[in-house]
């Protein structure tokens, strides 16, 4: 059985094929292929500078990939080729949401508004591009009430309902992180891309985050793509793991397999194999060892 085509038995929601991203001479990602599945948490891990965030930036339209194809098989709307879409249409049409490594909220807006903004397109349509909304037509008010309900639901889920009217910039760091996830969910995504959601969280908050992500996966039946450094999070909740190092995929598989994979351990612990060193360095090293052995 080919593990790539059917990671854990579901339909592939996201297919990344031969993704390459070059910045001038620097190959940030080289020929990476993997899949993310509906109702599964797929983690992308790797040492710093492995190209994890670059993968996200390609997926969400920040970068146009140099090569490769990114297909999102939307369960209701059919396939989208993400690499060909203009930035804002990816969340708008393909329903892909993302969060950032460093939290990016709208600090001068209230917590509730930060979520309502994610309903922008629904509300724009309902308000007839502002004209009817200004007249307070019933249809718009219903749509707005529906959006507010959705936002309140997510505020409740992340435990921020009582802070709804505070400015988002005044929230504590952990709260801001959860709010960012809630905002991403208010887009009603089919694929949620989380860039290090546990960064800077204390162990208790981190455990709560795990619960939240599992609940999102199970109750809302969407795919989650996760970049994470915190191994307790990665090993605790991911269904499938893709390991990148220096922009290349070095391993993929279920958590137990990855935990014991020698290439992964080597990438993380930085064990330098002599046959991977440049030949002249390896030769020097061998000579040194030989002289030491003699001495």
């Amino acid at each position, binding site marked *: 059985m080919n593990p790539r085509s059917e990671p854990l038995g579901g339909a592939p929601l996201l297919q990344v094929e031969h993704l390459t991203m070059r910045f001038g001479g620097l190959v940030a990602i080289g020929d990476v292929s993997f899949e993310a599945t509906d109702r599964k948490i797929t983690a992308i891990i790797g040492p710093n500078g492995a190209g994890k965030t670059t993968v996200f930036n390609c997926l*969400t*339209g*920040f970068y146009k990939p140099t090569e490769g194809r990114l297909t999102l098989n939307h369960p209701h709307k059919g396939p989208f080729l993400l690499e060909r879409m203009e*930035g*804002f*249409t990816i*969340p*708008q049409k393909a329903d892909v*949401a*993302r969060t*950032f490594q460093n939290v*990016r*909220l*709208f*600090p*001068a*807006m209230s917590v509730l*508004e930060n979520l*309502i*903004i*994610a*309903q*922008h*397109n629904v*509300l*724009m349509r309902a*308000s007839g*591009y*502002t004209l009817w*909304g*200004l007249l307070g037509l019933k249809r718009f008010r219903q749509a707005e009430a529906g959006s507010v309900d959705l936002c309140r639901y997510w505020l409740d889920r992340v435990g921020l309902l009582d802070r709804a009217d505070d400015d988002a910039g005044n929230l504590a760091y952990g709260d801001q992180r959860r709010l960012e996830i809630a*905002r991403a969910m208010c*887009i009603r995504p089919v694929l949620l891309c989380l860039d290090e959601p546990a960064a800077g969280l204390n162990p208790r908050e981190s455990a709560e985050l795990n619960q939240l992500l599992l609940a999102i996966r199970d109750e809302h039946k969407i795919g989650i793509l996760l970049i994470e450094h915190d191994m307790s999070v990665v090993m605790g909740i991911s269904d499938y793991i893709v390991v990148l190092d220096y922009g290349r995929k070095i391993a993929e598989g279920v958590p137990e397999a990855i935990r014991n994979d020698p290439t992964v351990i080597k990438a993380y612990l930085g064990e330098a194999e002599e046959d991977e060193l440049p030949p002249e360095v390896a030769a020097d090293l061998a000579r040194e060892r030989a002289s030491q052995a003699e001495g």
Partner: protein
Amino acid sequence: MDYFLQQLINGLTLGAIYGLIAIGYTMVYGIIGMINFAHGEIYMIGAFISLIAFLVLGILGITWLPLALLIVLLAAMVFTAFYGWTLERLAYRPLRGSPRLAALISAIGMSIFLQNYVQLLQGARVKPLQPVIPGGIVLMEGTISVRFNYIQMMIIAATIVLMAIFSLIIAKTAMGRAQRACQQDQTMSALVGINVDRTISMTFVMGAALAAVAGMMVTLYYGVIDFFIGFLAGIKAFTAAVVGGIGSLPGAMLGGLLIGLIEVFWSAYFTIEYKDVAAFSILILVLVFRPTGLMGKPEIEKV
């Protein structure tokens, strides 16, 4: 006292006009951090379009005043908004992402271009319009009677109504929310599915529509316009926006009123020649003591 009251009314009227123009500056600055120096010219074009609309209505024989005013208002807003949209599309959008100075120079270029464009098409001579809304009410009889002209009432009323509508748009509608979001973080706005380019275009359209109203009011109020009125009015309105705190909508209105009142009172009690000096001195004074303007929020750097 009566003299003071009369000047107060005049000052509020002028201030309302400055405020309407200043909103365009402040909105554009808020969203793309650029001073749209061609905004004064947009206002001038609004004045010309309303003048043309009045003349066309006169030819067509539509003389019932409320209807005529409404048609002129809508025509001026729509056509001027189109100019605003085109301006952004041609002169600023291609420069998005380039250094701010490039867009600024492009704005100055557009300002010169639009002045010459109107001068070529309409001629350099002053264009008159006979008083459309004559009369007014006399508030106080005396050696100097205090008059509150209907046109002044209309200007102040229209300004209040428009301010209310636009504040509502910014605060309550999806469009306004998107504008505020783009002010804070354009990248993130795109990631929640907001079409940032369209939102910026809409900001220009809204600013231009308000400038068109100011242009129409000035045409009605003074009865003369020429291709150069945009320059000084633009700079005054820009001053108003900065005094009020650039980026702040109520600030722009407050700044406009302040500049209008100062200008009028200075000409009334001191020398009319130095009224512009007085207005710009206020700018300097405010910036010395409150660098962010009266209602602007200081940018706090988080460490």
